């Protein structure tokens, strides 16, 4: 297998930037002097992600500094919530550090200990994380977790098709429709834009939130009551559903797509644009899952409405210390090690890794990181600054399900947009009232 000169140079440069494997992590600030927890073995409950596999592979450096060892248990995303629930209910104190997705944190608040004291004792500066990520670890004013894996949305597009037809990357939703229609006219068999409308973990809502914010709508009002069925809210749903039903610029099957189906559609060359999480880059570049090459894929910030900021919905995973852990102080040491921006940077620049994910401010603007990923992190940083966010209360999973059902019904045409979302609003009011 031939190695291209350019690839070799890029890898060498990245290795140079990353430095020796353990250089950065031997200098973790905030660790207790004298290795007071030497000999302790920590148990870590973790979702499957290449980023965390990379952390696990570097644990020797952590052990060298603290004398603590750690054993990671990796759970696939589809089973992660059940694993956390079992840990919360079981009461065995099986894990000393666990990771949870933002949308679950409030409903899992009984599982985690507040870590405000840990953070101040270890002098971990919280401005290290963009507020859009950091607030997902807070519940009721208490910090329950520190962000470690965070996603922003980007608009992926077929650079080769855009260049072939001299198209500009759309900055507004209106332009996105026009561009998609042009592509469909000039490239028969290829859909303009792939988005999911089917039920599944609220995935059919995640692009729509940007439509909602762009129209000036909100999910909830100041009293926590549903506001998504306001005139602006209903119009935003209509705009989103119109991509499928009126403009017909999505694949016909999008009505039942989950997020992965939408990604597969683009990866198999059936769609020209894909608004989705940035981590999908590695899927689109994976030859086992995609027919596309790096040269064919471009990305840009998510479109918005004319004159409105370009927002992104965020997805954040936070590390917390389970309330029933029996080794909390040692767990705090590992938390400080993971929260070190140098570790995140090292993984980002490791040429053996291909995971784009970063949540820490210094790395989002880092020159070497942006050089490696074509400026993706700079886009992410800009989106994070401009975006709004959703406060996920304990009832969020139930509310999300009511909303995704309404979106699915509106997309299939089983109910009109006002009917579906006014119905969802009534349901959400019942959920909120019951508390």
């Amino acid at each position, binding site marked *: 297998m031939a190695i291209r000169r350019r690839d070799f140079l890029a890898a060498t440069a990245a290795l140079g930037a990353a430095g020796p494997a353990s250089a950065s992590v031997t200098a973790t600030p905030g660790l207790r002097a004298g290795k007071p927890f030497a000999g302790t073995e920590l148990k870590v409950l973790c979702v499957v992600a290449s980023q965390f596999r990379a952390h696990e592979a570097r644990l020797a450096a952590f052990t060298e500094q603290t004398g603590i060892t750690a054993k990671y248990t990796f759970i696939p995303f589809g089973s992660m*919530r059940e694993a956390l629930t079992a840990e919360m209910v079981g009461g065995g104190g099986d894990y000393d550090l666990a990771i949870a997705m933002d949308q679950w944190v409030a409903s899992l608040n009984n599982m985690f200990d507040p870590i405000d004291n840990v953070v101040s004792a270890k002098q971990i500066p919280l401005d290290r994380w963009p507020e859009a990520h950091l607030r997902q670890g807070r519940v009721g004013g208490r910090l329950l977790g520190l962000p470690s894996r965070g996603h922003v949305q980007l608009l992926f597009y077929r650079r080769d098709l855009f260049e072939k037809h001299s198209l500009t990357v759309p900055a507004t939703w209106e332009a996105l429709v026009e561009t998609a229609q042009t592509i469909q006219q000039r490239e028969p068999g290829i859909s303009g834009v792939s988005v999911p409308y089917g039920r599944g973990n609220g995935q059919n809502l995640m692009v729509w939130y940007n439509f909602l914010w762009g129209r000036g709508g909100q999910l909830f009002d100041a009293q926590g009551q549903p506001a998504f069925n306001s005139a602006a809210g209903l119009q935003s749903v209509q705009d989103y559903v119109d991509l499928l039903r009126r403009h017909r610029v999505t*694949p016909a099957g999008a009505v*039942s797509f989950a997020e992965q189906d939408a990604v597969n559609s683009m990866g198999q060359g059936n769609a020209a644009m894909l608004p989705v999480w940035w981590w999908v880059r590695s899927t689109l570049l994976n030859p086992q899952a995609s027919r596309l090459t790096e040269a064919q894929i471009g990305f840009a910030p998510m479109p918005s409405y004319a004159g409105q900021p370009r927002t992104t919905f965020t997805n954040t995973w936070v590390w917390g210390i389970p309330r029933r852990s029996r080794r909390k102080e040692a767990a705090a040491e590992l938390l400080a090690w993971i929260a070190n921006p140098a570790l995140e940077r090292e993984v980002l620049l490791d040429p053996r890794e291909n995971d784009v994910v970063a949540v820490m401010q210094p790395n989002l603007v880092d020159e070497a990181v942006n050089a490696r990923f074509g400026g993706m992190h700079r886009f992410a940083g800009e989106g994070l600054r401009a975006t709004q966010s959703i406060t996920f209360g304990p009832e969020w999973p*139930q509310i999300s399900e009511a909303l995704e059902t309404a979106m699915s019904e509106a997309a299939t045409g089983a109910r009109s947009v006002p009917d579906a979302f006014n119905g969802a609003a009534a349901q959400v009011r019942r959920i909120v009232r019951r508390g």
Partner: protein
Amino acid sequence: MQDRRLKYLLILPAAFIVLGTTIWPLAVSLVTSFRDWRLTRSLTPGPFIGAEHYITALTDDPDFANALRVTAIFVVIDVTITVVSALGLAVLLRRAGVLHSVTRAVLILPFAVSPALVGISFRFMFNAEMGVFTWMAGAVLPFLRGFVWLAEPSSALLVLVFSDAWRWVPYMTLVVLGGLAALPKEPEEAARIDGANEWQVFRDVTLPALLPVLAVVGILKTVFALKMFDQVVTLTGGGPGQSTVTLAYLVYSIAFRWYDMGYASAVAWILTSMLVFLAVWYTRLVLRKASP
């Protein structure tokens, strides 16, 4: 006397296992169904609230009403298709011969596939862009070309039924084949001698004699269809809308997504009572069949 003591001693280990793994969890969930216990508020069960959860489910919960309706429709279609297909296949495979023997052996394979995997496979096969079944259906019936099977409530439910029937029909065929093998040959031969054609022999002699077996198959399949969960998760996700949310899937959602353990236990017990009713019916049928 010693024999009696030994008898009880020998069944003790099995009794403890059943008590620990079945009776105790069932009893705890029954008690939980009368308590207010939301994990978002407390890690320990809250106060007793009587039959409130049951009353809410049966009178004031559109999600429960929808799941009950979906489950009922699913069970009726699924059981009918499974029983009729199993009967038809069993009659076809009744004859002796190498091909029939091989087919009978191969029949068990779909049942060996995990239901979650069946759901994932069917999701791919019914994918609107690259699904093999979508393509085949369009090739055979042109009006189905480009039809998005998982987008319409009725067709999504049919796909769910199809995936379940694909897994169960072969197994039930083997059960019916067993029933056919046990039937005495004389009545069928007598009917043929009296001039009945094959359809008349089947309708008037074989089928009535096979009815107890078919009843057992029907009840067993009803019990399993009522518990439909895996394929809902991996194939339809309950959608489109709520058109494939079954009772078992609803229980899962209430317990492990919404963290309302008390209400989930109540809904689970409503489902369990249906299953217990059917299990008692099934047992009675089997015992009646077994008695001389």
